[in-house]
C-alpha cells in the first residue's frame, strides 16, 4: 500500500543487486538501499509523513525536487535538510522535526 522500491530483479534498468544500508530514524533502525535519498528510504520504509507543520499538520514529500521544503529532516545533527535531495548513507542518524512542537 505504501510507496515501494522496484525490486532490482524486476527493474528494467538492470540495476545491480541492492547493497543494503541502515539509518536510524528517531532512534529506530530503518533499512534502505545504497543510492536512495533519505526521502526514498523513509517512503519505502513505510513513512509517508515525518514532519509537522505549525499546527501539527503532517508533511512528507510533496514536490520531490527540493522546491517545496516540506520534507525537511535533521541529519546527523544538521537541521532542515531536504530529505528528497540528500543521499542516504549507512549509519545516518535522522531525527524528525515539528514546527508545532518547536513553537513557543
Amino acid at each position, binding site marked *: 500500500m505504501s510507496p515501494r522500491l522496484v525490486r532490482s530483479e524486476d527493474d528494467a534498468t538492470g540495476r545491480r543487486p541492492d547493497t543494503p544500508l541502515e539509518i536510524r530514524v528517531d532512534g529506530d533502525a530503518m533499512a534502505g538501499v545504497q543510492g536512495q535519498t533519505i526521502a526514498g528510504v523513509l517512503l519505502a520504509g513505510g513513512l509517508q509523513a515525518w514532519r509537522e507543520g505549525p499546527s501539527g499538520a503532517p508533511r512528507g514529500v510533496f514536490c520531490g525536487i527540493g522546491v517545496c521544503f516540506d520534507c525537511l529532516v535533521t541529519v546527523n*545533527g*544538521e*537541521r*532542515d535538510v531536504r530529505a528528497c535531495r540528500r543521499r542516504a548513507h549507512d549509519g545516518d542518524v535522522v531525527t524528525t522535526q515539528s*514546527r508545532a*512542537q*518547536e*513553537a*513557543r
Partner: protein
Amino acid sequence: MLSVTRVLVCGAGIIGAACARELALAGFAVTVLDRGGPAAATTSHGEGNVLVSDKGPGPELELAKLSRRLWPEILDGLPNAGTVEWDAKGGIVVATTAAGAETLTAFAESQREAGVAAEPMDATELAAAEPNVTKDFAAAVHYPEDAQVQPAGAATTLLAGALRAGATLRTGCEVLAAVTEGGRITGVRTSAGTFHADVVINAAGPWSGDLASRLGAPVDVRPRRGEVLVTTPMPPTVFHKVYDADYVGAVGSGAEDLQASAVVESTRAGTILLGSSRRRVGFDDRIRPEVLSVIAGKALKLFPMLAGVPVMRAYGGFRPYVPDHLPVIGPDPRLPGLWHASGHEGAGIGLSAGTAAILRDLLLDKPPEIDAGPFRVDRPAVLGEAS
C-alpha cells in the same frame, strides 16, 4: 476661525502613520499621501526596534524614553493591536572585548543617570537570560525597557487608528511640487491631482530630502542602507534583543563603507532576525552577499551555537540619515505651513510615538513634553549642507 485645520501627511510609513493618528485624534482633518502603499518602504524593511538601550544621554534618548512610555498607551487604545506583535522582551548588550566592556560600562552608567534602567549582568545571569549566547564575553548589560514590534503591522495598525479618527489615505500618489500662496505652502501637486491643506508634513523617510527639494525647501536627509538576514523557523533560541556593544558606535559613525554590528532577535514566527549593516550607497538596493557574510560572522561571535542555522531570506532597506544623527521634527523656517518629521536613522519605529506627540503639540501651539529644540529644522546639519 472655526474652520478645521487641514493637514497633508506625505508618507504612510511609521512616522506618517503615527503623526496622522495623533493629529486626527486631535481634531485635524488629515489626509495621508504615499506614492506606494502603507508601510511599503523603510518601515517594512527594518527589525521593529523600540529601544532606549542604544542611546546615550541627550535629546534622542529623551525622545526614546517618551516614545517608550507612549507606545503601550497607544496600543491600549487600538483594536487589532495583535498584528503589532508588541513584545517588551528587553535588550541585552554584550561586549566581547575588554575595551568594549569599559566603554559599555561607562555608557550604561551615564544612561542610568539619565533615567534608563540598565542592569549589569554576570555570567550566570547572562546564561540564564540567553542560554545560547557566547560564554566568551567581557561585559553584558540588561535593558528591561527595550521592546520590539512587527514594524509593518505597527504602521498599518496606527494608520487604521488614524482612519478611524477621520483621516483619509491616498496611495499611489506621488508629490511633485508645492502649491504656494503669499509665501505659504497651501497644498501639493501630485501625480493624482492637487491637494490643498493648511499644513504639509514631510514624513517621507529616506526620500524626505528629495521630497523637501520638490517642495522648494531642501533638507539634508539621506539614505543609509541596511540589510537583515532571516533564518528558518527555529525552536525558541533567542529571548531578548541581543546586540554587540559596538552597535552604538556604528550608528554614530559617518563612514561611507560598511559598518556592521551584530543584532540578533527572535520573532513570533520562530525565525531569527540578524542585522545590522550600514552603508551609504545612495539608493542602490542591490543586496551584497559579502555584506551578508559580515553580518553572519558578527552574529556568530555573539551566538556561536547558531552556526548550523540556515538562512532562508535576506532583505534590505534605507534608513533616513541626518549628518548630526538627530531626527528633524518641526516647522520649516523657510516655508510657513511646511513641517518635517524625518531622519530617524534606524530608530523610526520606536521614536514614532514621541515624534507624533511632539508634532501634535507644536501644531497645537502647546509646549511638548520634552524639549523639541534639538530636533528643529533650523540647524546646520539639516539646512547647511543641503544641495
